[in-house]
């Protein structure tokens, strides 16, 4: 069986890769493209560690077949910072100690960014439900939720000024 050639845009750059028909997008990003920021925590869409955004939609990349990425625009955690400037979420996670082991962190950041893009001033409850698809076993979520709140405040302030 010949492999599938996929052309897409990843983190703003044109990208191409070869994949198998049954390969997940997560595996393709990690093994074919070399972007290992998205993690496999479960492989069944239950933990969110593999979160990415494809054509504006937040996804578990473990539940997407890689050939489906043809012609799409993909964002991963590796594309969140602009050069040396961290995204406010990344900065707030760091300053708020919102990570312990850090393996769920890329998924949380991608999901939190998708949440704030859609809802710039979420309530605590909206943040908690918005991030319910991302499991963290270390933090008890407290500092993650606070970091998202802090980032939302920062982003809103920047946009208003």
């Amino acid at each position: 069986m010949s492999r599938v050639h996929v052309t897409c845009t990843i983190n703003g750059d044109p990208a191409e890769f070869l994949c198998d028909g049954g390969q997940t997008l997560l595996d393709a990003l990690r093994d074919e493209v070399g972007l290992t920021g998205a993690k496999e925590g479960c492989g069944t869409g239950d933990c969110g560690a593999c979160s990415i955004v494809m054509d504006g939609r937040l996804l578990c990349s473990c539940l997407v077949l890689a050939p489906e990425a043809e012609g799409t625009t993909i964002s991963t955690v590796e594309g969140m910072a602009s050069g040396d400037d961290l995204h406010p979420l990344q900065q707030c996670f760091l300053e708020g100690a919102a990570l312990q082991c850090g393996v769920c962190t890329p998924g949380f950041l991608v999901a939190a960014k998708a949440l704030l893009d859609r809802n710039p001033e979420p309530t605590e409850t909206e943040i908690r439900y918005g991030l319910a698809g991302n499991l963290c076993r270390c933090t008890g979520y407290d500092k993650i939720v606070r970091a998202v709140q802090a980032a939302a405040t920062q982003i809103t302030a920047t946009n208003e000024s």
Partner: protein
Amino acid sequence: MTVTEPKPSYKYVGTRPVRHDGLEKVTGRARFAADLNMSGQLHGIVVRSPHAHARIVSIDTSEAEAMPGVKAVITGDDFPAVEPGHRQYDMCINVIARDKVFYEGHALAAVAASTRDQAQAAAAAVKVEYEVLPAVLTIDQALAADAPVLHAHMMTAGANPPAEEPSNISNITRFSGGELDAGFAEADLVIEREFTTQPVHQGYIEPHACVADTGQDGHTTIWCSSQGHFNVRSSTATLLGWENTRIRVIPAEIGGGFGGKTTIYLEPLAVALSAKAGRPVKMVMTRDEVFRATGPAPGTKLRIKLGVKRDGTLVAGDAYLIYTNGAYAGPGGLLGAMTVFESYKIPNFEIEALDVVINTARSAAYRAPAAPLTAYAMETMLDEIAEELGIDPIDFRIQNAVTEGDPSTMGFPFARIGFVECLEAVRDHPNYKAPLGPNQGRGIAAGYWFNIGESSSATVNLNEDGTATVVTGSPDIGGSRASMALMAAEELGIDVYDIRPVVGDTEAVGFTDVTEGSRATFATGMAVVEACRRMVVELRGRAAKMMGVEVDDIDWVDGQAVYTGSDGDKAPLSVAEITAKAKRTGGPLTATGSLEAHGAGPGFAVHVCDLEVDPETGVVRVVRYTASQDAGTAIHPSYVEGQIQGGVAQGVGWALNEEYIYDSDGVMENPSFLDYRVPVASDLPMIDAIIVEVPNPAHPYGVRGVGETGIVPPIPAVANAIYGATGCRIRDLPMSPIRVLDAITSNGGSNGA
């Protein structure tokens, strides 16, 4: 934060810098074990038993070996034989089964092929002939008179008189003190309760993974995620029958462990496959494998009887504890016995604890192993007693709490501990008095964990520019690099961001035990402090040379060598100034600290949980939570809070929904995060962490381990709060909606006693 004792003012210790490994972790660059790839690597897949208990009649690998891309197939025969009595017998036959499989998911062969696809296909082609044996799946089955015996060599340790026949009881622990009968005779109120709990998983988000590369010289390098790479080295060497020096283990970032990564599963298989194939082999578990074949914490049956006088004085306690440790001997019962009465002054007590084997995955440590379950029993019973006697539950605990000098269950007097301070911190917190709404209840509970010391090593290297690299052997599982840097900054007097904390591999740093028992910041921190103090001695010597004075006239003050002699003024020398001249004053500046840390201070915690119960469905929602814990001294308060909050979340999950579910053949029915329900963000409120600081006299900065104690109180805190909301005492875990509704329905809302 509550500071209960005066402490020195520190410049760095107690501050909250951004962790040094943080940038890599928020940008996706941090390399966890599954992120590593070697050129030419093969992919390894484990063949696992579908049966909970079976004799392996034969394994035929010939078809698998002939399949496309397959480079190596191994079975237990590829490893040296081990006999009962071998120091790590259980670990060896757990990593790869020999004659028998003891649980569903037990590894019995492994395959390496060019692609994961090929390896999976080959694994499916390994033919195994089993003689299926009756499975022992519960404590009652294990203890039945006619129970199948899992291990023909298992003679109960600690039995008196000594065991003459093998059984499924691996160990009996007994502790006693005072006169039990006399104690109960003194009591005005005696209650006895029974509890059952199910195995739970640590639930780290990163599945086990490793890459092993064995060269033609017979030396191998393993990259893996673990709580202790020196243990990976020695355990892998033991399994392979190799010398430690043939194995180098390089720690990857670890994506959570909680005790579950204190042992090994994949590494020896990867090394053996790599040796056989002559290529690097990568192995990554699926979540399904993680659930079936790693980690559960024990399930239990507990029976406790307590006697108390009308004035609230506990006078007698009798505990009968049974812990399952999965298919092999384990310490659950022993640790249960050591924790059950440890927090309270109970002059007359007897404890008997059984460790029992059943046909489920070998249990692994999980955060304060065994203690959350004894706390579940004890702390809910104390609540009942306090109510019966009309005493506030915190006052009742303060009245009976152990303090400095009180004897522990094991006889020794406690050193300075912060239990009462934790109780007072919660009593004085607004949460304890906040109004409760309809169907809401409040529960408090306390928890205790010993904490441990063990061996640690650290090396401090001063760089040419005056910055420092601190190398330790403790994997950073939750921010410990930052703690090491803070202590080093305090000692050396240089900025915390001028210190690069590094986790060194087994050939780059001295031996260091596993990150467990809440020991990293305590014990490895002591090694860092020792190395830094040696470095300061060296720096003073170099400065003395540069100034041309006696070293005794040099003090180290705030990162500078300061001349204190009487021979006029001399400008102080900074670290950078000294390192710049290092070549001329004696060469590079390095110092090491290696020690066996004594005096790990026990940790206490007190939690208050407010929750709401839907009386028609039994659904429980936690609405408010506050947790106090004695950290001794918080080196990096944010990560201390994080440990407390994380422990709470895990404990709440354990209380409400987490459990292993097996079918009647011992096949796990919920091996996914869909049906093994760890708490999600919307299940929890903010968790207010109160850090109590009663310094540990044995540590230079007063540190007590904080990693584990926080998981001990949540189960009883939740149970007591459910009682508050419903009037029902639930004594079986998990307290799922089904159980809660059943309790409400069958008890009609009355006290379930």
